[in-house]
C-alpha cells in the first residue's frame, strides 16, 4: 500500500484530470456554445455516412495490418475470426442478438487459430 500511494505523481494526476477535460471537450465540441447556427445542408446529409465510415476506418487496419504494414499472409487468425463473425451475422440476417453472436462466433474461430496455431 505504501508504494502504491508513493508511486502517485502529482503532475500525472493533473494531466489525467485535464485529459478528462479533453474527453468532454471533443465529444461536446459543437454543442458547448448555445449560439444559434446550422450546419450546411450538404454537411447534414453527409454526416449520415460518418458512423459507418468511422467503423470501417477503425476496423480495417485492425484486421489486415500488423505493426503498421499490410499483412502478406492468409495465415492470420484475425481474417478467419472476422469471416466467422460475418458468416454468423448474415446467417442470422442481422436478427435477434446478431451482434453478440458475431462476437462469440468470431472469437470461437479466432482463439483456436491464434492460441493453438499461433496465427
Amino acid at each position, binding site marked *: 500500500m505504501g508504494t502504491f500511494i508513493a508511486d502517485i505523481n502529482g503532475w500525472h494526476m493533473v494531466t489525467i484530470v485535464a485529459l478528462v477535460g479533453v474527453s468532454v471537450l471533443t465529444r461536446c465540441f459543437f454543442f458547448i456554445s448555445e449560439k444559434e447556427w446550422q450546419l450546411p445542408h450538404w454537411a447534414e446529409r453527409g454526416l449520415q455516412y460518418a458512423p459507418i465510415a468511422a467503423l470501417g476506418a477503425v476496423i480495417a487496419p485492425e484486421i489486415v495490418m500488423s505493426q503498421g504494414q499490410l499483412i502478406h499472409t492468409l495465415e492470420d487468425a484475425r481474417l478467419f475470426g472476422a469471416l466467422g463473425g460475418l458468416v454468423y451475422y448474415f446467417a442470422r440476417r442481422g436478427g435477434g442478438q446478431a451482434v453478440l453472436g458475431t462476437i462469440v462466433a468470431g472469437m470461437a474461430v479466432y482463439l483456436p487459430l491464434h*492460441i493453438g496455431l499461433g496465427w
Partner: protein
Amino acid sequence: MQTIRQIVRNTEFRQGFVEMAQVAPGIAAWGLMTGVAMVKSGLGTAESLFMALTVFAGSAQLAAIPLMLAGAPIWVILATAFCVNLRFVVFSAHMRRYVMHVPFLKRLLCGYLTGDLTYVLFVKRHPEPATDDAGRAGQVAYLLGNGSINWFSWTASSLVGVVLANFIPTTWGLGFAGILALVGMTCSLASSPLRWIAGGIAAAAGVAAFTLPLKLNILVAIAAAVAFSLMLERSPWAGPLTGKPGR
C-alpha cells in the same frame, strides 16, 4: 427539464441500455485489454486506476501514457489526446440538434457518455432529431441509457485489466472481441449499397493513410467516405445505391 428518475423510467432508456448490452462483451474485452496495456506501458497502478475510472477514451489514453512517462509538456499531451479524439468532434456536429435543448451540465454529461458505439447506435435508432417534447425526452433517455451501460462495462473491465495486468498476457488477443463487436455493428448499419460503399472507402482509406500520426487516418477516412458518398448521391446511380427513388 427531466429529472434523473424520469429519464431512467422512460422506455427509451431501457431500449438504449438493451441495445448496448448486446455489444457489451466486446466492449468489456476491449476495456480489459486497454487496462492491461496501460500498466504494461509503464504507468503506475494507482494512476492507471484513476485514469481508467475517469478518462473514458481508450486510444487517447494509450497515446497519452508514453508522453506522460517521457515528461512531455502537458499541452503536448492534451493536444495529442485532442487529435486522437477528433472523430468525436465530427460526431458532436451530428449530435448538436439532438441535445441543444438539454441544460448545459447535462449536455456535457450526454457528450462525455457518447463513445463511438453509443453514437453509432443512437443515430441508427434516431435518424432524425425529434420535434416534440416527448420525442426529445425519449432521445436523451436513449442516449443516457446506452451511454451509461457502455461507460460501465468499459470502465469496470479496464479497472479489472489494470489490477490483473500481470496475469493476462496480451498475446491471447482477447481485445479482438472488441473489433468483432464493431464488425457486427457495421453490418447492422449497412442498410443500403451506398452505406456499404462508404464503409468500404473508409476501410481502404484508413489502411492507406495508416502511417499518419495521431490516428488521423480515421479522420481522413471519414472525410473521404463522406465526400465520395455525397458525390454518388448526386450521380445517376443514386436511386439504386441509396435504396430510395432518385432525386
